[in-house]
C-alpha cells in the first residue's frame, strides 16, 4: 500500500527522474520505470482475433432476432425546407409494413439534406425502403448555403435563429463553448500568447509569410454503419444492441428518451465495425436513430433493427469539419517571432469546427501566438468528433506554412522545429527520426531532382503531434474475480472499438497475479458488466486499465489474506508470491491453484475504479495538469509532374503513449492513424453540390478512401514513457497517431515540387496547378473571411 509522497521513477529513457507523489487513498504504487512486467508491454495477439478473421464475431449488423423488423428512414431531400405536411398513413398500407412514424411535423424547419422526416418498420428491409415512397410529404423550400464562403457572407440565409446548443461528446476534449453568433458565424475562444500584432508589425517583410490553407470535410466512413436493434422486454425495460463506441451513452440516451430507469436498459456491443468519434450515442449526430428504432419497436410490438445506409452514413452521422485557415508567420534571424491563425470552418448545422492545438501548443518557443477559430453554420449534416478533432486540420496549415517560412529564412524545416519545441521527448523524436529517416541526405536528393526537372520527384516532410492523456477518474468500475478453479475473470462494460482493449485488460489482470494470459477471461461489451468510458479522446486504455489493476490488486490482497491463513502465518505481509504465482510464507508454499481451491464461496471478488490523474511526466499538456503525448512523423512522397499524381511510399512514425501496454495493438493503432491521415492527405473529401445543396459522393466509390495500393510502408518507432499519472501508466495513441500524417505529406509535396499545394486533398488537379501546368481559377479569399 502506498504511503504519503511515494517515490516514482518517471520520464523516458535517457531522462528518468524520481518524483515524490502523493497518491490518492487506496492507490497501489503505480507501475513506473523500475517495474519489471511480464505480460504488460509484450506483443500479445488479440484474444478475439480468430473470431474476427473467421467471421464468428457478431457485429450489431449480424444480430437477428425472431420476429425482428427492419426500419428505414425517409430523409429530407432539400438543404433547407419548411415542412408543410407529413402523412405516414399510406406507408402503413404497403406490404410488410408494421409501423410508421413521422419525425417532423408541419411547421418544422429542416436544415440539411438528410435530416429525419419519417420512418417505417417492415418485415423485410426492401419492403421498408420501398414503403418510404408512399409517405406523403410537402415541403416549402428555403434559401440555404452549403459552403463556408457563402454561409459566412453577411447576407446569407441564417441557419440557426438564436442561440446554438452545443453538442459535445466524449470525443471532444478540452476546447469548446462559443461566443456570440453573428449571421452564421460564431467565434470559438481564441488561444493567445504574447502580442502577435505588435510582433508582426516589427517583422521584416521578407521574413514573414501569409497564405490561406484549406481542408475539406471528411466523413468517418466506418465500415459498419451506425445502427441499433431494440427489443422491448416488457413495458419498462429494453435490450439494445448498438454499433457504438460508448455503451453507457447509449444506455443513458435510451433511458432518457423513453423515460426508463437506466438500469432497465441493457446495451450490448460485442463487436463494433469502427466509430472514429461518430458513434457516441444511441442516435447519430444528425439522426434520432435511438428514438426511431425504440418507438417503431414499441408501436410494432416487435424488435426493430435500424442500420444506416451508406448514403445516410455520409450525410447525417457526423463528419470532420472543413477549414479555411489564414496563416501569418513572422521570423527574426532563425527564430520564430509570431504565429497567427484565423480559421473558418463548418460543422454543418453542428458545432466544433476549431483547428486544435497544433499551432498553439507545439512550437512553444515562439513568443507570440494567436489562434482564432470560427464555426460557420451551413446547411449540411452536423460535424462531430473525429479522431483528434480539429488537429489534423490545424497541423496541415501550420506545418506547411512553417516549411514555406523556413524556405524564406534559409533554415532547414527539421531544425526549425527542433529549435522551437519545448517537449523534451518530441525533440528527441525529431532528432532520432531525422537520423533513421536519413533526413539531411534525402532532402539533398530531392533538391537535386527539383533542379534537374525530373519527371518523378521525391520529396520529404516532417510534422508533429500533440495530444493529452485524458484518462478519466472514477468513470470505469472494474470487477475482478478469482475463482476456485484458479481462473481470473475481468468484468467491465467497455466496448472494444477495434483497438484491442480487451486483450490489454486481460494482460493487466494476468500481470497482477503473474498468471498465464490463458487463465484470464474478459467480460465486456455489455452494460451489465459495470460502468465504463466511451472510446473517445484516446482515453480508454488510460481510464480502464488502472481500474482493472486496482481491482485486481484488491482481489490479490484478499487472496493473500486467504493464503496467509492457509500457510498458517499471522499476517498477509508475511506472504510472498513468486513469478510462477506460488505463495510462500512461514517456510511453506502453496501453488496458486492450491490457494484458489480453498477460496470460500463462489469467488474472491473486488471492484475498483481509476483514481484522478496524479502526474504529468515528461511534460504537461498545454493548460491542463495531465501528461502531454508527443509524436513525430516523417513522410516520403513521389510526385509525377506529368500527371500530378502523388504517392506516399513511406512514412516513419515515432510515437509515445505512456507505457506501451501491448506493442502489437499500439502498432496497429499507429498503422490505422497513418492510413487515415494518408487518405485525408490524398483523396478524402465530401463534395457538395451548390445547386442541390446535397452531397454528390455519398458512397464509397466517389468518396475515396485509401486502398491497399495507396498505403505507404509504415515504420514505427515507439518510446516508452513513464508518466506517473495512474496505476498502470497507460496513456492514449489512437488520435495522436493520425494528427501529423497529412501535414507531413503536404510538406513532402512542397519539397518535391518546390511549390506548396495549400489545399487538401493533394489531387492531380491541384498538383498540376501548383506546377503551373494550367491556370487554375481559384477565387481569392473573400473579404468577409479575412482576419
Amino acid at each position: 500500500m502506498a504511503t504519503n509522497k511515494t517515490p516514482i521513477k518517471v520520464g523516458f529513457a535517457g531522462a528518468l527522474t524520481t518524483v515524490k507523489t502523493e497518491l490518492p487513498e487506496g492507490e497501489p504504487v503505480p507501475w513506473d520505470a523500475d517495474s519489471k512486467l511480464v505480460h504488460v508491454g509484450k506483443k500479445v495477439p488479440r484474444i478475439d482475433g480468430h473470431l474476427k478473421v473467421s467471421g464468428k464475431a457478431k457485429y450489431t449488423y449480424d444480430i437477428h432476432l425472431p420476429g425482428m423488423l427492419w426500419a428505414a428512414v425517409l430523409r429530407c431531400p432539400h438543404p433547407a425546407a419548411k415542412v408543410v405536411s407529413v402523412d405516414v398513413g399510406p406507408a402503413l398500407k404497403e406490404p410488410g409494413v408494421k409501423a410508421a412514424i413521422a419525425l417532423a411535423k408541419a411547421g418544422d424547419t429542416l436544415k440539411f439534406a438528410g435530416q429525419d422526416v419519417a420512418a417505417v418498420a417492415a418485415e423485410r428491409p426492401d419492403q421498408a425502403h420501398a414503403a418510404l415512397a408512399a409517405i406523403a410529404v410537402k415541403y416549402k423550400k428555403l434559401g440555404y448555403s452549403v459552403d463556408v464562403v457563402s454561409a459566412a457572407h453577411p447576407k446569407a440565409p441564417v441557419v440557426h435563429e438564436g442561440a446554438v446548443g452545443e453538442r459535445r461528446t466524449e470525443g471532444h476534449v478540452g476546447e469548446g463553448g462559443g461566443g456570440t453568433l453573428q449571421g452564421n458565424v460564431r467565434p470559438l475562444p481564441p488561444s493567445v500568447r504574447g502580442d502577435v500584432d505588435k510582433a508582426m508589425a516589427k517583422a521584416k517583410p521578407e521574413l514573414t509569410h501569409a497564405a490561406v490553407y484549406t481542408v475539406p470535410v471528411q466523413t468517418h466512413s466506418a465500415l459498419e454503419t451506425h445502427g441499433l436493434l431494440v427489443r422491448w422486454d416488457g413495458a419498462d425495460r429494453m435490450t439494445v444492441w448498438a454499433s457504438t463506441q460508448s455503451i453507457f451513452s447509449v444506455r443513458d440516451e435510451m433511458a432518457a428518451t423513453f423515460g426508463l430507469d437506466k438500469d432497465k436498459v441493457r446495451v450490448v456491443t460485442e463487436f463494433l465495425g469502427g466509430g472514429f468519434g461518430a458513434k457516441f450515442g444511441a442516435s447519430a449526430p444528425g439522426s434520432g436513430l435511438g428514438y426511431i428504432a425504440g418507438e417503431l419497436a414499441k408501436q410494432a410490438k416487435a424488435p426493430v433493427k435500424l442500420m444506416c445506409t451508406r448514403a445516410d452514413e455520409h450525410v447525417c452521422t457526423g463528419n470532420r469539419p472543413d477549414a479555411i485557415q489564414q496563416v501569418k508567420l513572422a521570423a527574426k534571424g532563425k527564430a520564430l517571432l509570431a504565429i497567427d491563425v484565423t480559421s473558418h470552418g463548418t460543422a454543418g448545422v453542428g458545432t466544433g469546427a476549431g483547428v486544435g492545438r497544433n499551432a498553439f501548443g507545439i512550437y512553444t518557443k515562439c513568443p507570440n501566438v494567436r489562434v482564432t477559430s470560427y464555426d460557420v453554420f451551413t446547411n449540411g449534416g452536423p460535424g462531430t468528433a473525429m479522431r483528434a478533432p480539429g488537429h489534423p486540420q490545424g497541423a496541415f496549415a501550420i506545418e506547411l506554412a512553417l516549411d514555406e517560412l523556413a524556405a524564406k529564412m534559409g533554415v532547414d524545416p527539421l531544425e526549425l522545429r527542433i529549435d522551437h519545441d519545448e517537449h523534451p521527448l518530441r525533440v528527441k523524436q525529431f532528432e532520432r527520426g531525422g537520423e533513421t529517416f536519413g533526413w539531411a541526405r534525402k532532402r539533398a536528393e530531392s533538391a537535386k531532382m527539383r533542379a534537374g526537372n525530373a519527371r518523378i520527384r521525391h520529396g520529404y516532410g516532417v510534422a508533429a503531434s500533440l495530444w493529452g492523456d485524458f484518462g478519466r477518474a472514477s468513470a470505469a468500475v472494474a470487477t475482478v474475480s478469482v475463482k476456485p478453479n484458479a481462473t481470473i475473470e475481468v468484468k467491465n462494460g467497455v466496448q472494444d472499438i477495434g483497438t484491442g482493449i480487451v486483450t490489454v485488460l486481460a494482460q493487466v489482470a494476468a500481470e497482477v497475479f503473474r498468471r498465464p494470459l490463458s487463465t484470464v477471461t474478459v467480460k465486456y461489451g455489455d452494460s451489465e458488466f459495470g460502468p465504463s468510458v466511451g472510446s473517445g479522446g484516446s482515453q480508454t486504455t488510460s481510464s480502464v486499465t488502472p481500474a482493472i489493476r486496482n481491482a485486481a490488486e484488491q482481489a490479490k490482497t484478499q487472496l493473500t489474506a486467504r493464503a496467509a491463513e492457509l500457510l498458517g502465518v499471522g499476517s498477509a505481509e508475511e506472504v510472498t508470491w513468486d513469478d510462477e504465482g506460488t505463495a510462500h510464507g512461514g517456510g511453506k508454499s502453496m501453488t496458486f491453484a492450491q490457494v484458489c481451491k480453498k477460496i470460500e464461496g463462489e469467488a474472491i471478488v473486488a471492484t475498483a475504479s481509476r483514481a484522478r490523474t496524479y502526474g504529468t511526466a515528461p511534460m504537461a499538456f498545454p493548460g491542463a495538469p495531465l501528461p502531454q503525448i508527443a509524436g513525430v512523423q516523417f513522410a516520403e512522397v513521389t510526385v509525377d509532374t506529368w500527371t500530378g499524381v502523388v504517392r506516399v511510399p513511406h512514412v516513419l512514425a515515432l510515437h509515445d503513449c505512456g507505457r506501451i501496454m501491448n506493442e502489437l495493438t499500439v502498432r496497429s493503432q499507429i498503422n490505422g492513424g497513418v492510413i487515415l491521415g494518408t487518405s485525408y492527405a490524398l483523396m478524402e473529401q465530401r463534395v457538395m453540390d451548390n445547386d442541390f445543396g446535397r452531397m454528390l459522393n455519398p458512397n464509397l466509390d466517389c468518396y475515396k478512401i485509401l486502398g491497399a495500393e495507396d498505403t505507404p510502408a509504415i515504420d514505427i518507432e515507439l518510446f516508452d514513457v513513464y508518466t506517473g499519472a495512474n496505476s498502470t501508466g497507460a496513456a492514449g495513441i489512437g488520435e495522436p497517431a493520425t494528427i501529423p500524417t497529412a501535414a507531413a505529406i503536404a510538406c513532402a509535396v512542397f519539397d518535391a515540387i518546390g511549390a506548396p499545394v495549400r489545399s487538401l486533398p493533394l489531387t492531380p488537379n491541384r498538383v498540376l496547378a501548383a506546377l503551373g501546368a494550367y491556370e487554375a481559377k481559384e477565387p481569392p479569399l473573400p473579404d468577409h473571411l479575412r482576419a
Partner: protein
Amino acid sequence: MERFSIVRLATLKETSARVAEGAGERVIRAGGIDLLDRMKEGLEAPTELVELQSIGGEEGTALRGASEKDGGWRLGALVTLGQIAAMTDLPKAYRALQVAAGEAATPGIRNAATLGGNLLQRPRCWYFRHQDMVCLKKGGDMCYAQTGDHRYHAILGAGPSWIVHPSSTASPLLALDASVEIWDGKASTRTVPIADLFALPTVDPEREHTLSPGEILLSVQLPAPVADQRSAYATAKEKQSQDWPLAEASVRLSMRGGKMSQVRVALGHVAPIPWRAKEAEAILEGKTPSADLFVEAAKAATSPAKPLAGNAYKVPLTHGLLRQALHEATGLAEA
C-alpha cells in the same frame, strides 16, 4: 434494391427475344457489375435479369472464348477483363488493351466484369448516379454537371451531356482499330468499327451506344497487327486501388526504320465517347520519335478541347499521359 428474378435461357435467340419483348423491364446481365450497381443505386428496377452466361453450345463457346484467325483475334463478349489481362498468347502488339484491362477496377471486379459489359456500362457521372437528380441523360431537361461540379467530366466532344465514357477498354480498342460483332436478335450479325458502337450525346443524350434493345454484342475483333506494331496505354487516377481513370491515352503505331507510321491515338475519360485524336496522329505520322515531337502531338491532341471551369487540369494531364504512352510505344526514353 427491389426484388427481381433471374432468367437463364440456352440460346441467343431466346435470350434476345426475352429482352426485346420487355424492354426496360428485362435486361441482359453479363458480369452484372454495372447493372447491379445501377439497381442498388435505385436508378433502375428491372424485374428480370436475363443471363448471358447461360447460353450454351457453340454460341456459348463463342461468347466465352478467345481465338486467333488470320493473325487477328476474336474476343468473346463474355471474356473477362481479368482473362484479357492474363492471356499469354495475345500478340505484344495489343499490349495497350492488356494493360488497360489489367489496370481497370480491382482484381475481384476484373474477374467478373466482361468485355461486352465493360463497353456497354453506363456513365459514372455523379449526377446521373444520384437517384434523386434527374438530369438530361435521365430524361430531365438539363445537364447539372455543366454548371455544377464537373471535375471528372469531359473536355472534348461534350454537350449537351458532359459525361466521359467509362470504359477503360474502349480507348485501346479504338487505337487498335477493333470492330464489334453484333447479333441483331433475329437472324443476322453485323460487324462494325468500334467507333460506330458509341454515339455522342448530340445524337441522343440518354444513350451512349447504338445497340437496340435485344441486340447482343457477341465479340470484339482485333485486326492482325500491322508490321512492327506496338501499342501502349497510360492512365492516371486519384486513388491507385479501385478507382476510375481521370484520363487515359492509348497509342498504336508501327516502328520501321526509326520512323512512326500507321499512328492511332485514342483518349479515354476525356470525352463522351472514346476519342480519336487525329490532330496528334497527323503530327506523328512518318516522323522520327522525339520528346519534343511528343509534346507537340500531345498539345495537338487536346487542341479542340473546351474545358469547363473545373476540369481544365485534364488538358495537361492528358498531355502527360499521351507523352508517356508515346515514349512507351516507341521505346524512346523519357528524359
